[in-house]
C-alpha cells in the first residue's frame, strides 16, 4: 500500500555523473520500507502552491527512514534539473510509496538473476545488487550495464571495486558510443550476442530484470526470448518521456 504523501528532507547528495545525482532523503514521519526494484512518487510544491509529481526508482535499500533515489537530468525537464542541480541539503519535498509490486527481486530467493540495465535503467537494478549484499544473499547475479560512454557510468566505484559481500556478482559494462581505451568490445548497442555471452543461460532458469529506454528493453527482452528464456521470468521496466523510470 503506497499510503499517503510523506514529508522528506534532503540529508545528503552525491554526484554520480555529470548529469545524474543521488539524493538521500529522510522521511520525517517514517518510511514503511521497500523491496528492491520498487519506486517512489515525488511531489514538489512551489511557493504559490503549484505542484509537480514524478516517479523515480529507489536506488538502495532503506536505512531506517532514509531512502535514496538517483535522478538523471533531462534537458529542458521540469523536475529533474531542480533535483540534480538546485535542491540543497535541508530542502524538502514529499514522497509516496513504495510503489510497484512486479519489478521486484526477493532477497530470500536463491534463483540465479540476470540484470540488464540501459543508462539510468541501472538504478532499480543497483537497488537489487545492494539488497543482495545487505541480505548476505549468495544468489548468482549477473549485471549487464549498457552505457553510452565512460563519463555516464553511475555507481562507478561501487561496481568497479566491489564490496566483499558482492562475491558471486558479475558485472559487464557494454559501451554503446565510446569505450575506454583497451576495451575489447567495440562500442555498440546491446544485442543478442551480448545477452548470450554475458547474461545467464536459459537452462539455469534465471529471473531476468530488464530496465532502460524502450529500444534497449525491446532488444534485450526479444533476445532473451530468442535464447529460450521463459517469457514469464522476464520482467521489464521502461523509461517514460521524463527520463524517470516507467
Amino acid at each position, binding site marked *: *500500500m*503506497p*499510503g499517503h*504523501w510523506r*514529508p522528506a528532507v534532503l540529508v545528503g547528495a552525491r554526484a554520480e555523473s555529470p548529469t545524474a545525482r543521488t539524493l538521500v532523503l529522510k522521511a520525517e514521519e517514517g518510511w514503511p520500507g521497500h523491496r528492491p526494484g520498487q519506486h517512489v512518487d515525488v*511531489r*514538489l*510544491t*512551489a*511557493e504559490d*502552491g*503549484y*505542484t*509537480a*509529481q*514524478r*516517479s523515480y526508482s529507489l536506488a538502495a535499500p532503506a536505512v531506517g527512514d532514509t531512502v535514496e533515489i538517483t535522478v538523471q537530468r533531462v534537458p529542458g525537464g*521540469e523536475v529533474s534539473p*531542480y533535483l540534480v542541480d*538546485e*535542491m*540543497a541539503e535541508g*530542502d*524538502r*519535498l*514529499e514522497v509516496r510509496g513504495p*510503489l*510497484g*509490486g*512486479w*519489478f521486484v527481486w526477493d532477497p530470500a530467493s536463491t534463483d540465479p538473476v540476470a540484470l540488464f540495465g540501459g543508462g539510468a535503467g541501472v538504478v532499480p537494478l543497483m537497488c537489487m545488487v545492494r539488497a543482495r549484499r545487505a541480505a548476505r544473499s549468495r544468489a548468482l547475479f549477473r549485471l549487464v550495464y549498457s552505457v553510452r560512454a565512460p563519463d555516464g557510468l553511475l555507481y562507478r566505484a561501487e561496481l568497479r571495486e566491489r564490496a566483499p559481500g558482492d562475491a558471486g556478482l558479475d558485472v559487464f559494462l557494454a559501451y554503446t558510443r565510446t569505450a575506454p581505451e583497451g576495451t575489447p568490445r567495440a562500442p555498440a548497442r546491446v544485442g543478442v550476442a551480448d545477452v548470450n555471452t554475458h547474461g545467464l543461460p536459459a537452462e539455469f532458469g534465471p529471473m531476468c530484470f530488464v530496465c532502460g529506454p*524502450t529500444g534497449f*528493453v*525491446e532488444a534485450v*527482452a*526479444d533476445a*532473451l*526470448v530468442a535464447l529460450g528464456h521463459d*517469457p*514469464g521470468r*522476464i*520482467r*521489464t521496466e*521502461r*523509461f*517514460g*518521456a*521524463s527520463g524517470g523510470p*516507467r
Partner: protein
Amino acid sequence: MGIISRGFGGRRRTAEDARVPPGQYLTDGFPVLSAGPTPRVTEEDWRFSITSEAGDTVTWTWEEFLALPQERPHTDIHCVTRWSKLDTEWTGVGLDTLLESVDTAADFALAYSHGGYTTNLPLEDLAGGQAWVVHAFGGEPLAPEHGGPARLLVPHLYFWKSAKWIKGVRLLDHDEPGFWEQAGYHPYGDPWREQRYWGD
C-alpha cells in the same frame, strides 16, 4: 498547502491545463509501459473473442475484424506513470459494435492479452462509445511495442486499462482484478479522480 520545496519554480501550463488530469505532465513522445517481453502476434494468427457470462464465445479473425465498421477516435490518453498525451488518433472497431454480437447481462469485463496480461473494467465503461479495439495509431499500423496488431483503447481510464496485444474479453457477473489491479493499482483508475493505487 503542503511542504514547499525551496527554489522549485515549476513550469505552469496554460490553455492545455484543463485537459491534463491532476498529477500528470504532458509529453509529445509516446512512452511504452509493459511488464514483460513484447509478444509477437501475426495478423494471420490473430483472433479476438468475447465470451459471455454464460460461456458463449464469439470470435473474429483479422479479416472479419477489419470488415467491421471502423471508427477514428481522437482522444487524450493518461498513463498512471504520470505522462499524458493529447490529441492521439486511432483507428479501430467500437466495443459497442463488437458487443452487438453478444447476449449479455454481465456487469464486469476482464480483458486478456497475448503474454498473459489482464485488466478488469465495469462493462458499462466498455459501452457507450467509450472503448475501441484499435489497430492503427496516427494512420499507421500499431507497432508491436504499443500493442500491435491490436490493443484495447479506453481513454477515459488510466492507460493500463487499454490492454495491449488484446486477445479477448470475458464478461463476468463479478469483478475480477487484473494484473496491475492485483499488484497495488486501483481497481477502476479514473485519472480525473487520481485513482492510481489501492485506497485512492
